[in-house]
């Protein structure tokens, strides 16, 4: 009956707590429940710092004393810079959290809205809506949002349907299907640009690159109506995703309703990505690099990675947008190009590292 005790002592290189003495010095950190303070403080500090920096820099540096004295500077700040920074934060948070969600759900570290074609689908949907006219709304919700949502949802369904055989989602097929959906979607966008009249075609072109335009708070509120439910779903299923990241069958045996979770991932990710794409165009790779960066610092726990990707994604895109605004002396860069360059290189690095695993 002591066999397993002996066994553990024999196999272990360090003294093991066999029954109830997990508070030994060597095992203290392992025996303690997860400490949430440190990661939260780290992440919030990053978010606060990036918010301040991106509010400060721009066409003109704006600090508190300027804001207090200068009337026009104040107007500039509240009507242009603040909403733009908030928008960048919202988009970054959306993409970061959806990326973390998709990576866990598909058990694929290269999954994100862009690589899976979700952004592509959204772009196509939104292009159709733009070709028909920006201004159209349906019960107060801009048509572009709805069309992008529909496009994203269609893309997720197609990609998932193609890559799932029986119980297994094949990682290779998943990414390949994403690439193909992206190609089809961008071909569709080009066709629409040809058919649409010149000014709208230009509008589409400018928007697909991924820019965060000067927007009023009005538009932000409308986005939030759709985004907040999506975010809430993601946070609510974070634990299910944590279990799914370790395998579908074991998650199911631990009480996760896999089918329901799957539906929620569909709805939430296409809703969030659709709205983000409709507003910001294709901002690629934020959903990829943010979760990876978070995991590097905080470890693998999806229940932690997902909310932290939300916050870090917000901070990251605010900074990227600040860079896009200030990199050129005159005019500005599209933020999508900035993130694509940073993210694309990171993606290649990950791909190279991934060759070590047989996973893909």
């Amino acid at each position: 009956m002591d066999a397993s005790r002996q066994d553990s002592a024999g196999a272990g290189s360090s003294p093991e707590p066999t029954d109830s003495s997990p508070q030994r010095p060597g095992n203290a950190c392992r025996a303690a429940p997860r400490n949430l303070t440190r990661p939260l403080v780290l992440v919030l500090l990053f978010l606060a710092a990036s918010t301040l920096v991106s509010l400060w820099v721009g066409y003109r540096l704006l600090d508190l004393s300027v804001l207090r004295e200068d009337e026009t500077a104040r107007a500039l700040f509240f009507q242009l810079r603040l909403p733009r920074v908030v928008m960048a934060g919202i988009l970054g948070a959306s993409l970061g959290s959806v990326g973390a969600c998709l990576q866990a759900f598909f058990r694929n570290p290269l999954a994100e809205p862009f690589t899976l074609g979700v952004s592509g689908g959204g772009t196509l949907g939104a292009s159709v809506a733009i070709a028909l006219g920006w201004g159209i709304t349906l019960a107060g919700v801009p048509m572009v949002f709805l069309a992008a949502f529909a496009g994203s949802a269609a893309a997720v369904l197609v990609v998932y349907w193609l890559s799932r055989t029986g119980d297994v989602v094949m990682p290779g097929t998943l990414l390949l299907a994403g690439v193909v959906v992206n190609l089809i979607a961008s071909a569709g966008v080009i066709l629409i640009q040809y058919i649409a009249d010149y000014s709208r075609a230009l509008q589409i072109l400018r928007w697909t690159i991924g820019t965060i335009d000067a927007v009023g708070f009005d538009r932000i509120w409308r986005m939030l109506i759709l985004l907040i439910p999506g975010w809430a779903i993601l946070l609510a299923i974070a634990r299910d995703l944590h279990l799914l990241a370790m395998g579908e069958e074991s998650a199911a045996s631990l009480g996760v309703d896999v089918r329901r979770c799957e539906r929620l991932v569909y709805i939430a990710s296409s809703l969030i990505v659709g709205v983000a794409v409709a507003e910001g165009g294709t901002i690629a790779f934020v959903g990829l690099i943010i979760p990876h960066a978070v995991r590097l610092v905080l470890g693998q726990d999806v229940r932690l990675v997902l909310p932290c990707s939300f916050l870090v994604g917000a901070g990251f895109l605010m900074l990227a947008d600040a860079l896009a605004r200030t990199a050129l002396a005159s005019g500005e860069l599209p933020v999508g190009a900035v993130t694509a360059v940073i993210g694309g290189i990171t993606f290649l690095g990950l791909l190279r590292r991934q060759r070590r695993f047989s996973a893909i």
Partner: protein
Amino acid sequence: MSADALMPAGADALIEARGLRFAYEADRWVVDGVSLELKHGALAALIGANGSGKSTLIRLLAGLRSANAGEVLFSGQPLKGIPRKRLARSLAYVPQINPMIFPFTAMEVVLTGRTPYTPRFRFENRLDVEQALKALAMVGAAHLAPRPVTELSGGERQLVAVARALAQEPECLILDEPAAALDLKHRAALIRILRQLRDRQGMTALMVTHDLQLLDPAFDRVFAIHRGLLLAEGSPGQVLRDEVLSRVYEDPQVRARKLEGRTFVWSGT
């Protein structure tokens, strides 16, 4: 259907399957009408040739799939009607292959076994961590706790998967070839743990295995399935016989011999 149905049908069955049928594609029955009873506190094995439907059958028994026909009762209740969380406290399942993409630590993996006991928005507390450590120590894998599972060998991962199931503190454990990747010593240790848990806590276990040497005398009951049908069931001594095994494996050369209280099985000349 069952050649050696000696046990009378009783109320002491923990898992009871009635006429289970299951097909992945239309009309190709992988499980083709299986009825069986797993008694409380029994250590049982499920044997059969490759592709005979073993894994599918235990998935049905574990509630991971729904049968096309027939039903599974757990403690006398239809499995389908039991809330998932409650079922996960009573029934744990160890999958055959456990591919890991992300480098979760072994501790993180085992801690997920505490999920059925923790509310959705709370992380595991000290008690859960202690339980997880205990489960790891039980399978002799406490030293693996801080290691990323992606760096572990197949056998070590298997131990971690078993530890996770034990952390669920289940009444019943269903294991899909847990011994496949284990070495001689850990195979024996796993069986010892299962027997220990049966004796101390009355835990019930059903284990799919191809390693027939493990069965006699360690197991209480053996179910043999062949092409989706239950071909034989009984004590290891009753099932591990030349004529039964030749039919189970469709191999006339299978031999089973008793030596020093154990039954050894081999095939070929």
